[in-house]
């Protein structure tokens, strides 16, 4: 069924189809609509779930962990300071191997206080052990909601999953979305079954402590779990395409990269404008291309190395800065190239912080800057800075 929905509403539709049994909710702009819509679905009976109003984000994640430990499919959502406040619990969820799904509305972090979109909140949690996906549009948001549980709950993965939607430009923008049929969704995503749960018939120790002798083994297994998602994401998308007819491209999505000289690597909803700009530059004979990172964890090391191997220069455009260094996506991309022994000129463009608009002419300028050479780390609209 086709509907005109916002990113938040589309994600809520995807979650309804995924049938979570417990939803813990604490509202924060620009995430609020997703938990509002889910509360309406529970109220009207179209979603059978325990809807728990909690007193904070820390409790929202704690509640989801408790539900998952009881063997339930659990959902929560947050944004910005809320994500930071629940950060302690993110590690309990991943370390406990609880396949919770959370939507994060990507939003700036205080101070100065700001409710608008950038990606500094979620990127600060790359090390928390969660799978991290970034949607470009409302359709992909809905589809990620449905695919997320299948990936997270896979026995080889057993890892919580954070689906990121750019605050406002994606969460609050309405567009046409295809909502899958209930029967098809049920066929795609069976109910959650796990041994990793409290079971009075078969009692076991859960969420225990592990000293120096064994702790590192758990951490190694956790690492393996996130890495296992690489394969599972591809398999899940293949099955998704067979049932629903929409194709996704794994950890990254390439556009006009086969013969590209200059490539922008980016993530989230700005990718569309990058592709449109690449089209325009191609008409002028400039071989421009775009790589959209769909998953930051597991990180697409090999995929990025393959696509950037033969370019003349690349830019990483991101809504993030790790103060005193560079954007974190840039660090990750450079590491991928280094591991593959690739030495290509790379530049970092920091933009969109606190919701500041990134225009088509900004993107054109990036292509021109990397062709001519520029500072390594650049703030769009301000200029380059010494990278220490």
């Amino acid at each position: 069924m086709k509907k005109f929905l916002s990113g938040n509403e589309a994600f809520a539709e995807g979650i309804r189809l995924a049938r979570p049994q417990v939803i813990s909710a604490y509202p924060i702009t620009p995430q609020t609509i997703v938990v509002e819509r889910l509360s309406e679905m529970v109220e009207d009976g179209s979603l059978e779930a325990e809807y728990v109003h909690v007193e904070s984000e820390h409790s929202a994640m704690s509640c989801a962990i408790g539900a998952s430990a009881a063997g339930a499919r659990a959902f929560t959502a947050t944004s910005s300071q809320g994500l930071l406040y629940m950060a302690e619990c993110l590690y309990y969820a991943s370390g406990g191997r609880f396949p919770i799904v959370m939507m994060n509305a990507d939003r700036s972090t205080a101070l100065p206080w700001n409710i608008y979109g950038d990606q500094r909140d979620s990127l600060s949690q790359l090390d928390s052990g969660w799978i991290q996906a970034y949607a470009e549009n409302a359709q992909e948001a809905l589809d990620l909601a449905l695919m997320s549980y299948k990936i997270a709950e896979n026995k080889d993965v057993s890892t919580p999953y954070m689906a990121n939607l750019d605050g406002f430009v994606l969460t609050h923008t309405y567009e046409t979305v295809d909502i899958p049929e209930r029967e098809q969704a049920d066929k795609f995503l069976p109910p959650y079954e796990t041994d990793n749960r409290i079971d009075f018939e078969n009692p076991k120790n859960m969420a225990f402590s592990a000293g120096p002798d064994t702790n590192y083994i758990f951490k190694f297994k956790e690492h393996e779990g996130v890495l296992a998602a690489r394969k599972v994401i591809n398999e899940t998308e293949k099955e998704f395409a067979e049932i629903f007819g929409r194709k996704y491209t794994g950890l990254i999505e390439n556009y006009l990269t086969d013969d590209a000289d200059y490539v922008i690597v980016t993530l989230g909803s700005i990718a569309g404008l990058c592709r449109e700009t690449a089209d325009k530059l191609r008409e002028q004979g400039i071989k421009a291309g775009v790589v959209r990172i769909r998953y930051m964890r597991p990180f697409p090391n090999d995929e990025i190395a393959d696509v950037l191997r033969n370019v003349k220069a690349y830019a990483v455009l991101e809504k993030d800065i790790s103060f005193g260094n560079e954007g974190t996506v840039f660090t990750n991309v450079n590491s991928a190239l280094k591991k593959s022994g690739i030495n290509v000129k790379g530049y970092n463009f920091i933009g969109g912080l606190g919701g500041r608009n990134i225009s088509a002419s900004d993107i054109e300028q990036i292509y021109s800057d990397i062709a001519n050479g520029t500072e390594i780390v650049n703030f769009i609209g301000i200029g380059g800075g010494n990278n220490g």
Partner: protein
Amino acid sequence: MNEIIWLGRGGQGAFTAAKLLGAAYTIDSREKYALAFPSFGPERRGAPVRAFTKLDTKPVVDRSQTEKADYIVILDDTLYSPQLQELLKDNGQIIVNSKKTINEAFTFDAEKIAAEFRLPTVNTVMFGLLIGRSDIVTAENAVESIKGYMPPKIQERNISALLKAKEEAVK
């Protein structure tokens, strides 16, 4: 691409109108694409609100606020200013809810129609005027969008107001 800017005050339903237009445009075709979004930020009743609708025959990827519009639809004439002309494309039009005459804008007393159909706000009346002044969506598709996206209790009155406004605008 057709771009429409809606100006209203918080509570007047400018964004609802922006959404209805996007839904109406895409309702009967897979080859049509729309984005609709409000000026982002805290919502306050009475405060000036901008909303945007972008319509195209290919996916709309520029999610930034419209800088040059085909139509600017103003729900409250205290929000009109001559500087708005700078936001218009060359053949662009401004449509204002006003009892007064404004040079370089089409004005119409939308509240008269809203009152006739016992509507507390003029958003669907303005949508009707826009359809009357342009051919960006058909009245049939606009009616379908109201049926799809407004609460059942108020659909009929809004549909009647929209159709009446469309007629008046063509006169």
